[in-house]
């Protein structure tokens, strides 16, 4: 399955900006971003707050039971993801968008 299409601009920094303007609460933003990533790419993700060695679930796909990847996207946040259905290049772009959002 590969339904993520970058050229159609389904998942862009503009969309992330829109999501962040919709919600004042960070976890609601992250939930919405996780929904958007799932809808556009089929990839399940959930966000964790990193505190020392602790990764504490904070938002995203709570039904993702068997994560395959654990990725630190900033000092404060990490994501757990299910199977990745997009190319490495596309996935890197998605991660960059997530990092961009978190850094803001």
């Amino acid at each position, binding site marked *: 399955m590969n339904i993520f299409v970058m050229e159609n601009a389904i998942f862009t920094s503009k969309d992330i900006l829109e999501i962040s303007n919709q919600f004042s609460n960070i976890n609601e933003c992250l939930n919405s971003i996780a929904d958007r990533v799932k809808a556009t790419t089929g990839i399940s993700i959930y966000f964790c707050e990193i*505190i*020392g*060695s602790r990764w504490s*679930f904070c938002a995203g796909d709570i039904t993702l039971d068997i994560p395959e990847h654990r990725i630190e996207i900033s000092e404060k946040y990490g994501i757990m993801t299910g199977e990745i259905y997009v190319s490495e290049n596309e996935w890197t772009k998605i991660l960059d968008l997530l990092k961009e959002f978190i850094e803001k």
Partner: protein
Amino acid sequence: METKKTWAEQVIKQDEIDKYLINGNDFIDEQEIFRQLEENKNPDKQRIRDIMQKSLSIELLNPDEVASLLAVEDEDLLQEMYATALKVKQKVYDNRIVFFAPLYCSNLCVNSCLYCGFRKENTEEKRRILTMDEIREETRIVTREGHKRMIIVFGEHERSNADYMVESIKAAYSVQEKSPNGPGSGNIRRINVNAAPMETSELKKLWKAGIGTYQVFQETYHKPTYKVVHPSGPKSNYQWRLYALHRAMDAGIDDVATGALFGVYDWKFEVMGLLYHAMDLERQFGIGPHTISFPRLTPASGSQLSTDSKYLVSDEHMKKLVAILRLSVPYTGLICTVREQPDTHTALMTIGCTQTDASSNIGIGGYTDALKAKALVQVEGSTQIKEKQQFILNDTRSLDEMVREMGKLGMISSFCTAGYRCGRTGDKIMGLLKSCKEGKFCKLNAVLTYREFLDDYASDETREIGFPIIEKEMMEIKEMPFYKKGKLYENFLDKYEHICNGERDFYI
């Protein structure tokens, strides 16, 4: 003239109690509990079996159901309850026992608990607070045994306040110690904290230091008894303690642990109290307790109550109450400690406990002192100094011996700290526990960490018992449909191979 309040007088913040009350009341209604115990005192066998079925569906039991279980006296039915309790445990947590070590940092205390050696009036107690260097040294000794989890314990005192706790946690996390056998080095990967109730802003400091679970025992849920055994100090405020875990949740600490000190009041009442505590956490936060502990009153220096209480719990009742807790709150971890005699400890492990400590020394600086004593007098076993600890331990077996004992019982010892490092915390882990999926991860991580232990710390006798257990677990993992989803099985095998090759700290 206004007198300046002492530190202890400023601990309690009434507004941080009131916000959790329902119409001004807390969640322990004693008359209601007594009524439930009375009205369910003659349950028929079928009702008990129906309740056990509900437990097997991993559902929290209601108070009337728990009261019915508490009334069971029939020996055959009790045996069924023990067997069902073990089944529930295996369904939720699989076949593993998680090990941890306690580290007592300070016995300075402003409270006067009648059962405790730390109480401020106890002049027999030798008071001490560890420096950060001493905490690192204690941690090194614990790490050399093979432990990966610690619970740090503090008395309630201005000098062991939240800032001291944070420094202690950081000091313990910083230790990296070469393992005695293998190529690896060990460290403490998860630190839980047992400390007095605090205000939310102080709890946030612990949260930011990266603690695992925050543990506060109510000791007794019976208010008149609570008042008698806690005559002064901040701990004398029942509701401040009752809502300690609620404040922790609000501070962001989503793994909280409760417990009662059995032997202070009627054990049946305490089981009901623990149930109501779990229910209220679920009601207010959607997350029940991560673990429940059930320490039993044991002799403590200068404490008459610790030997004379009329509510001391027999071994038989201890076994029953543990099974009932397992059935009542099926998704929650149950912690059995080495306060128990070795035989009782083993018996309790086989009816649904999920965690235990081992090679424990609960004196302040006790691990270091025991090591020095051993070197001086060349004796085997740990040393207990009554005047430096909260109570007396009955099971002083080493971690290696305990792991071997669990192996003989067919159980795999686990040093897993994976959930906490993969976002399986709070409501996420609750969901996985209730749907019996977390146990599948427990199984994988138990194998990974057990292998580390066998290679790095175990004696030859323990390895002899341990490797066949790994083989058996690996066979089961290979056959179970759950592990055929996605790349989970391949991922596990890959990590296992890394560990066999001497690399460390792989988890799923």
